[in-house]
Every structure is written in structure tokens, then in C-alpha cells.
């Protein structure tokens, strides 16, 4: 059967998913973007991965429009005037969202709801009604869990309404992050977020103090947990699979001095040519209204250098066969992790990035959350492999060692039993401790939830079951959740519970 016909006859795809799949097919059939033969070889042997960005990129991967401009000035191209009440605010945003491109064709950043809605929250009942429709509209039309909104850091009535609605509605979309700063975010609000997170797997907590300290400027959390400049974004996110790269090395020294630099540079050059293509060849930065009206500026974009498989790479180079005795449980492996990341960080920083003047002309490291074809050989970013997670305390402390490198995002997911539902205080203590020790991003959920976080995005377990039964799921991402469950045991994280007492 032809690939087109496969898509047309697939009963698990909705109409919209078919359109996107067909478009992607066409995009991937083209070869406008020249690739180095060595890069093509690396794709084949799976040391590097282009994360499905194809060879004809026609938009930056992630775009974070500055929606405050929409609120203040409206949008000429869309014929929108500044909103005067909560209904117009919701309507303007919903219209604009449908015109924000991305790799998924859905907007990966919806703005900071706390700030965007604050001026329009006049009557609690009316705000709640408007936001309820707003959230429902998003879940049913922006059908992709990489659609991501931010709240915080300060408490407000809008936030509390959003948390209430999130718990009440139990929707996988949008992804939600609290920008958490213990100086600005009061404990009551933070605890309400913990409570909501355990019940619905969102919001996650972003270490606002750390992100601001990195000098990234005015940033938002988009897609899974990508920290990027508002009014900018990320052009591209190809990845290095560290485990596969390690298998090409004779030994540790060969890896650090020859093999790793070789593949890193190959990837950096690919990022250069991809970014050049997006900026110089595609029409986005020339004619898209987001650029023309200043919602985004080209210099605020950068390239994201994706990393997976640090744990397995360290174990491999040290000849550790049993992951339960390796990275996460083994100081030598963790020290090697730091040496590798120091090296990789310097390689990326030394490379002069293209078209990213607002980001010091540098690309940024990103601990990518993995895709189902990574299987069990490359855990996401710098995470400890699922199945060998140590005690919660050690788990956090080991991973904290690597968070400093990944300025455009890293995080892990912790699964809790229901005793934690009654003790948001205790979980907030842990989050505060983790952030004080250098963790960038923390997310958790209750083991019994329907909405669960797979590797960074949210899906409903009940929707995965639909796919298992060959029925369609409205959310484009459910299929990734099914894959990650099947190949990477991503729904079988250790549950932190009373049984850890045994």
C-alpha cells in the first residue's frame, strides 16, 4: 500500500491528523535542505536524530509570541482590536493561537495566563465562565499536548480559578507550568498548585530564580519544558543520542576527545544549515504577520541542541552492565556524567550560532524528553532510567548535578501515591529543596490519575486505550504516549510511597 493510502485508511486518525500526516509526508519527501553525507550516515546509524524536522523546514520549531502586544495593540493582520473585557481577551487569544505555526502546527506557547487575564478579571463568576469555555475550546481545537501555558509567579484570583477549572475539567491540554519563585509565590498558592498537580499532572514547577539567573531575559516555558525567549523561540531541535555515540568510541578518552566532539560538531553544523534555511529561504521571517507586527523578533530565536542517553552513555563507557548499579547509584558514573556534560557544554558554547544575536550568538543545550524509537537505550536527557530509580532524595540529588547545563530545559517526573494528596506541605518542602539545589523543573502526578505525564507531555490513559482498540483519539500526542508506554515503560515510573519504607 502507498504511504498516502496508509494514512487515508488508518482508523485511528482523525481528519485533522490525516491532513497533518499528509503534509508531513510531502515535507519529508523534499530534499531542499542539503545534508552533509556524514550527517545522513549519522541519522541512519541513529547517533544523531533530526526529530522529524525533515529536509524542508518552513517555520521555526517553537514560536513564543509576545501576546502582551496583542492585548495592548491588537493585531492588524487578524483585524483584532485590544480586548476590553474577559470575553474579548479569550476570543482574541483563541483567534491568534490558530495562526501560530510550530513543528506540530499547533501553538506550543499560549502565554502567561496570570498576566494576560489579570486586567479583565472583574467578576469572579464571569471570569470562571469565560475561562472554562476558553480551556474547553483549547482542548478541543488545539489538539496536541505540546500546547503549553504558563502561570505565576504571583498568586491571583485568575490563578485560583484556573486551578479549580483544571481539577474540575481533567483535560490533557494545555500543558501548564507555574513559574515558581519562593520570594514571589506564596506558600498557599504553591500548595494549591501541588494539590492540582497531584490530581491532574499539572501544573509543573519551573525554577524561576534559576532561569532568571541564567540571563535568558523574558522567558516562557513551551512545548514539553523548553525555556525560550518570549518574542522569540527555538529554530530547531536535533538530538545527539549519547549512548549510540559512546558505542563508536574505543574507550572513555576516545569518546571525550574524538568521538563526542566529532558528532557534536556535525550536529552544530546541521543546526547552522537548518537555521540558515529557515531564515533565508522560508517566508516566515520575511512575511509572516507575527514577525511584521513584532510579536516575535528573529534575533530572539536560537537553536536547541538536544541530548538524550547520558545515563546509558556513562554506564557503557564504564562497562557497567546492570543499570541498577550504574548512573543514579554510582558516583563514578555520575562524575563521568559531569565530565561529559562539561565537554559538551563547552563545544556548544564555543560554536558561534547563526541568527541568534539576542542569545549571545549561542545555541543552548536541551535535555530532550525522548521519543518512542529511543527505546530503553537512551533515557531522556540526563534522567535516571525508569525501573532503577533510587530513593526520591537521591533521585533528585543525582539529577540536580546536571540541570545547570540545560538552559533551555530539563526536568524529571515523579510519581506519588495518594498519601501525598493529604500532604502538599511535604511535597512543597521537597520542591523548595530541589530548586535550592539547582533543579530547574519538577513535575509529579498521582499514580492513579487518568491524565498522566509521559515523558514531558500529558495524555489520558483512557485515550491510549482507545488507540489500543483501534479507535481515534482527538489528541495528536496520545499516539506518542502509547509508543512510550510500549517501548520505554514510561508509565511505569517508580511510585514514591509507603512501600519505600520496606
Amino acid at each position, binding site marked *: 500500500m502507498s504511504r498516502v493510502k496508509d494514512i487515508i485508511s488508518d482508523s485511528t486518525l482523525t481528519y485533522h491528523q490525516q491532513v497533518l500526516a499528509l503534509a508531513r509526508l510531502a515535507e519529508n519527501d523534499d530534499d531542499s535542505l542539503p545534508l552533509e553525507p556524514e550527517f545522513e550516515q549519522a541519522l541512519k546509524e541513529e547517533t544523531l536524530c533530526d526529530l522529524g524536522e525533515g529536509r524542508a523546514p518552513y517555520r521555526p520549531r517553537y514560536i513564543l509570541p509576545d501576546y502582551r502586544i496583542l492585548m495592548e495593540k491588537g493585531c492588524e493582520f487578524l483585524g483584532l482590536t485590544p480586548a476590553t473585557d474577559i470575553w474579548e481577551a479569550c476570543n482574541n487569544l483563541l483567534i491568534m493561537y490558530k495562526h501560530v505555526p510550530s513543528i506540530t502546527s499547533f501553538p506550543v506557547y499560549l502565554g502567561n495566563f496570570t498576566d494576560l487575564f489579570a486586567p479583565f478579571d472583574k467578576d469572579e463568576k464571569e471570569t470562571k465562565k469565560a475561562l472554562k469555555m476558553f480551556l474547553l475550546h483549547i482542548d478541543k481545537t488545539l489538539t496536541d499536548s505540546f500546547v503549553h501555558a504558563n502561570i505565576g509567579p504571583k498568586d491571583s484570583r485568575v490563578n485560583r480559578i484556573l486551578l479549580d477549572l483544571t481539577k474540575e475539567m481533567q483535560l490533557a491540554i494545555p500543558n501548564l507550568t507555574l513559574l515558581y519563585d519562593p520570594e514571589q509565590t506564596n506558600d498557599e498558592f504553591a500548595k494549591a498548585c501541588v494539590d492540582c498537580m497531584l490530581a491532574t499532572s499539572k501544573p509543573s514547577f519551573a525554577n524561576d530564580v534559576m532561569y532568571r539567573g541564567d540571563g535568558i531575559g523574558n522567558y516562557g516555558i513551551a512545548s514539553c519544558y523548553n525555556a525560550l525567549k518570549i518574542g522569540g523561540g527555538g529554530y530547531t531541535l536535533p538530538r545527539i543520542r549519547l549512548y549510540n555515540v559512546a558505542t563508536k568510541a574505543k574507550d572513555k578518552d576516545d569518546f571525550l576527545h574524538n568521538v563526542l566532539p566529532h558528532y557534536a560538531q556535525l550536529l552544530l553544523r546541521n543546526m547552522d544549515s537548518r537555521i540558515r534555511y529557515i531564515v533565508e529561504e522560508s517566508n516566515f521571517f520575511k512575511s509572516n504577520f507575527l514577525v511584521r507586527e513584532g510579536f516575535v523578533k528573529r534575533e530572539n530565536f536560537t537553536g536547541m541542541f538536544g541530548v538524550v542517553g547520558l545515563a546509558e552513555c556513562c554506564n557503557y563507557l564504564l562497562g557497567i552492565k546492570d543499570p541498577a548499579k550504574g548512573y543514579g547509584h554510582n558516583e563514578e558514573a555520575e562524575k563521568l556524567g559531569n565530565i561529559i556534560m562539561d565537554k559538551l557544554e563547552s563545544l556548544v558554547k564555543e560554536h558561534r550560532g547563526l541568527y541568534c544575536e539576542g542569545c549571545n550568538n549561542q545555541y543552548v543545550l536541551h535535555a530532550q524528553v525522548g521519543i518512542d524509537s529511543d527505546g530503553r537505550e537512551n533515557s531522556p536527557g540526563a534522567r535516571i532510567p525508569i525501573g532503577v530509580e533510587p*530513593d*526520591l*532524595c*537521591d533521585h*533528585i*540529588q543525582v539529577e540536580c548535578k546536571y540541570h545547570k547545563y540545560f538552559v533551555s530545559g530539563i526536568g524529571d517526573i515523579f510519581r506519588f501515591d495518594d*498519601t*501525598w494528596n*493529604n*500532604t502538599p*506541605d*511535604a*511535597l*512543597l*518542602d*521537597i520542591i*523548595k*529543596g*530541589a530548586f*535550592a*539545589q539547582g533543579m530547574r523543573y519538577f513535575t509529579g502526578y498521582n499514580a492513579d490519575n487518568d491524565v498522566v505525564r509521559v515523558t514531558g507531555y500529558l495524555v489520558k490513559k483512557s485515550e491510549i486505550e482507545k488507540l489500543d482498540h483501534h479507535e481515534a483519539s482527538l489528541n495528536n500526542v496520545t499516539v506518542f504516549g502509547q509508543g512510550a508506554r510500549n517501548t520505554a515503560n514510561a508509565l511505569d515510573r517508580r511510585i*514514591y510511597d*509507603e512501600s*519505600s*519504607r*520496606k
Partner: protein
Amino acid sequence: MHWIVEFMMRAPVNKIIPFSNVDGPGNRCAIFFQSCPFSCLYCHNPETIRMCRNCGKCVEKCPAEALKIEEGIVRWNESVCVNCDTCIKECEYLASPKIHFMSVEEIVEEIRKRKAFLRGITVSGGECMNQSAFLLELFKEVKKLGLTCLIDSNGYYDFENYPELMELCDGVMLDVKAVDPAFHQELCGCSNEIVLKNLDYLLKIHKLEEVRTVILPHFDEQNEKTVCYVSKKIKNQSRYKLIRYRKYGVRKEGLRKLGEENVSQEYMEPYKQICFKNGNKQSVII
């Protein structure tokens, strides 16, 4: 304390739980000391009740050869232990060979590693007040880390006799297992006279963090008596945890006396109502 005493001082530690969300407010490091003057029928960790007598029975049964007798003392090799708990099941004396004798400094080091994540520590057991002199030194050090110190106790020891420790500690979580003296004796093998005195004393000095009572199946009258007494005493001055009896981990003689059924949520409601009526709005069912 003389330095040599301090140097020699070690306490039997059954377990340290680095992060606990169920041993007092916030995230806490919980330290469980070995040995207890009570031997409650429903104890969930009966292996913490007594000290090992070095009889050596467990040594023979250990499938991992993690136990051996050296100079008449049972030694545990933690690195080869598979935590199958065969030793605990074999022990006829409600003891465990799997304990560490730790110094204050060693425990503090465990706490220090995790300090950023913790609101405080909780000492429990067994009965941690069996180690009261050790606790005093431990608390002095833990306070230097800026953490709070809670005592989880069955109330066997009269807290009024430990003014320095009471001064340092941030609160006591007290078990009141039964108010009726004869029933308490039957249940725990000890008098409750000091327990009830402690309830009054801790209220008076504002160090009562919470009170706990296990609600039993088949003993409605005793349950009611205890819940009434405690809730009237504490009113709304402290949290009152009503714990459902669960059969898990309970030894045979306990199951014979108390039954094999777990107490349901519905069964608990009337007791919560009693608390409410007596002015305790902080009662929680666990």
C-alpha cells in the same frame, strides 16, 4: 556530658527514612530507634519492640548468609542482605538483627545530606524515649541545622522529668491507645497512668503536636471512651489522628484478639463526629 561518654554514645537505629510525609508536618527525616517498653497487640513493626538476644536462630535461616555469630553476637552484613525479612519472621523475641548502632554525628550526617529538602526530623520507634539522653544530644545538633525536632512517643516516660529535652523539642506526637486502664494493660502490656499524665502535661506546656488513637473493630465501647476523653481534653489545641485498624503486619496473638478485618471509613465517621462535638475540628481519619 563528658567527652568520653559522648564519644561512646551510640543508639540502636532500626531505620532512617530520608523523606517522610506521614511523620509530622512537612517533609521530614524519620529516625526509628529499636526497642519499646510496650508490646501492643496491633503493632505493625513488632520487630522493633525488643533488643536482639543473640540466640542465633535467624542466622541459621538467613537464605543470603547475611547474618553470622561472632563472639556470641549476631552480626548483620547489610551489603549482602536481600531484605527478605526471614530473620524477622523467625525471631521469637520481637527483635531484629538488622539494626545499626549509630552515633549522633553519624545520624546528623545523614540528615545534613538532605537538609535542603527537610522541614525537620521526627524521632520514632520502637519507643525513642528509651534513648532520651541520646535524643538530647541529637536535638542539640539538629537545631544547629535550623530544623525542627518532633518526638513520636507512646508516652511511657514522664516528659516532666526531661525539661531540657522538652525545651529543645518542637512537639510531641503522642499515642493514646486506650483510656481504660485495664484495657490499656491488656492491649499494650503496660499501665497508661503516665500516658494520660503526659497528655495533660504536654497540653500545659504547649508541646502537643498531635494525638493518635487506633480505632479497633469489635471494641466500640473502648473506642468511644478513648476518643471522648482525648477530644474533650485537647479540644482544638492539637490535631487528633484517628487511625483505622489494619491487619497488615499484626502478629498472630494480635489477630486472635483484635480480628482480621480492617476498619472501614464509614466505621470511623461517628468517632470523628465525637471529636467535632467536643470542639476538636482538626481530627483526621487515617
